[in-house]
């Protein structure tokens, strides 16, 4: 095997491992009764956080290439995006089935009455068409331009997911702040990266002494 091909396979294997490990760890903790005093809350929180982390990783693909020329995330962006959507789905399922016991009146009430759940749900709904068009035939069918336009929804979904997390925590916003900062940096990096036409020129005139 060529060195490049082997490297590509290793990267793929690594990213698959990265995608699956949190789920397997959570499964092991659940089976081993090691999720703490409030296991459902813990499971919900962990799954939601992993959905966010993978969303941010997905969004890092383009800036990473612009800044460093690295294409590895870009080549596996679909895997990362689908992983994020899967964790979001598991997050929602744990909430609906284990936490609310599929009590629809409660669930619908939550979605309608509690803004943090409303925006979380909206974020999930926005991810659905992206996940549903994550195969080559869909790109051909939609045409690359329209497909890409559709997939820009990921920014809206991530923004809403971050808002969902922000509103969920009571007083300590340290962790959502970290995610929000990463999100902001990724957005900035997309538009102001080396090689981009918005690059700042060195200031003219006097140099500082």
């Amino acid at each position, binding site marked *: 095997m060529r060195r490049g091909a082997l490297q590509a396979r290793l990267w793929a294997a690594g990213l698959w491992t990265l995608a699956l490990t949190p789920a397997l760890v959570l499964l092991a903790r659940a089976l081993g009764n090691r999720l703490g005093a409030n296991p459902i809350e813990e499971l919900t929180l962990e799954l939601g956080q992993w959905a966010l982390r993978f969303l941010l990783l997905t969004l890092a693909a383009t800036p990473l290439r612009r800044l460093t020329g690295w294409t590895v995330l870009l080549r596996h962006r679909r895997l990362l995006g689908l992983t994020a959507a899967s964790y979001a789905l598991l997050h929602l399922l744990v909430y609906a089935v284990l936490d609310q*016991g599929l009590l629809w009146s409660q669930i619908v009430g939550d979605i309608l009455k509690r803004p943090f759940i409303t925006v979380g749900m909206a974020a999930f709904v926005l991810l659905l068409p992206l996940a549903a068009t994550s195969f080559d035939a869909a790109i051909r069918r939609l045409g690359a331009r329209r497909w890409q336009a559709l997939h820009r929804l990921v920014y809206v979904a991530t923004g809403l997911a971050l808002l969902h997390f922000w509103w969920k925590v009571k*007083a300590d916003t340290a962790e959502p702040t970290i995610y929000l900062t990463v999100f902001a940096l990724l957005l900035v990096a997309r538009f102001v990266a080396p090689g981009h036409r918005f690059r700042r020129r060195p200031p003219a005139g006097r140099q500082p002494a």
Partner: protein
Amino acid sequence: MKRFRLSVPGASAITPRAVYQARRQLLLAGAGAGLALAWPGFARSASAVGPLAAVPRGPFGTDEALTPRQFVTGYNNFYEFGTDKADPAANAHTLRPRPWQVQIDGAVSRPLTVDIEELLQPKNLQERIYRLRCVEGWSMVIPWIGLPLADVLRRVEPLGSAKYVEFTTLHDPEQMPGQKRDVLPWPYVEGLRLDEAMHPLSFLAVGLYGDVLPNQNGAPLRLVVPWKYGFKSVKSIVRIRFAEQQPQTAWNVVAPQEYGFYANVNPQVDHPRWSQARERRLGEGLLASRRPTLPFNGYAEQVASLYAGMDLRRDF
């Protein structure tokens, strides 16, 4: 009401009740001074060893299964030691609960400073098993040891002008590292109306599960008001002040639309982020469903009359 027996410290709650009760009898029969050796935590307040291990059962018990001890002591909201539920158990070792004094003053004729050792006198103490309902939608059943709040309050002879009682947590960022961050206005303050404070259910806890109160649970002295959400039960109290005005309480100051002064458990009044209709009893595992929340956390018979004529949707 069934007779309740005091449980042993340790893994009692996850052991079948009959087994641990039998074991406790054995221990009591032979233990005596051995208790101090078996639980090093007792050594710091040797005088408390006997009393806490043999306090009588007080009123207001329940037959409901106790929440396992490791959850009562390992899942805490005590932002003075961090905002994660596991933080207090990990960080509260920096608190020094002895020596400790509580200042009782304000609109009283005999202001007083009480030493914790005095409150720990065996003759004062009793055990009460109370439900605890958190505004976040979870609940526990905890065997507290302590004394009726009214017993302490009466000693300072409140003036007729006193309408409220304000409780203040220790403010010392060295002992409580969470206070180095402005998550809440420090020190944590809570308050009760005078009649609520004097109610026989209102309790000052100095222990749980037959042991002195662990730091993360509010050592050495905390309030327990079982018909109100848990955040009313202020921990590590250093001051009790009788006031003419309603006290400015910590969570109420931070988010008045979410945390009322009264904070009575009420399945009819939702918190903006959590429905209060049902609750999750901790320790019941992944597959247990939520249970309906009772008005006043099941203590309506005892306390509903305190709020006659009030609109508890407005005064939540």
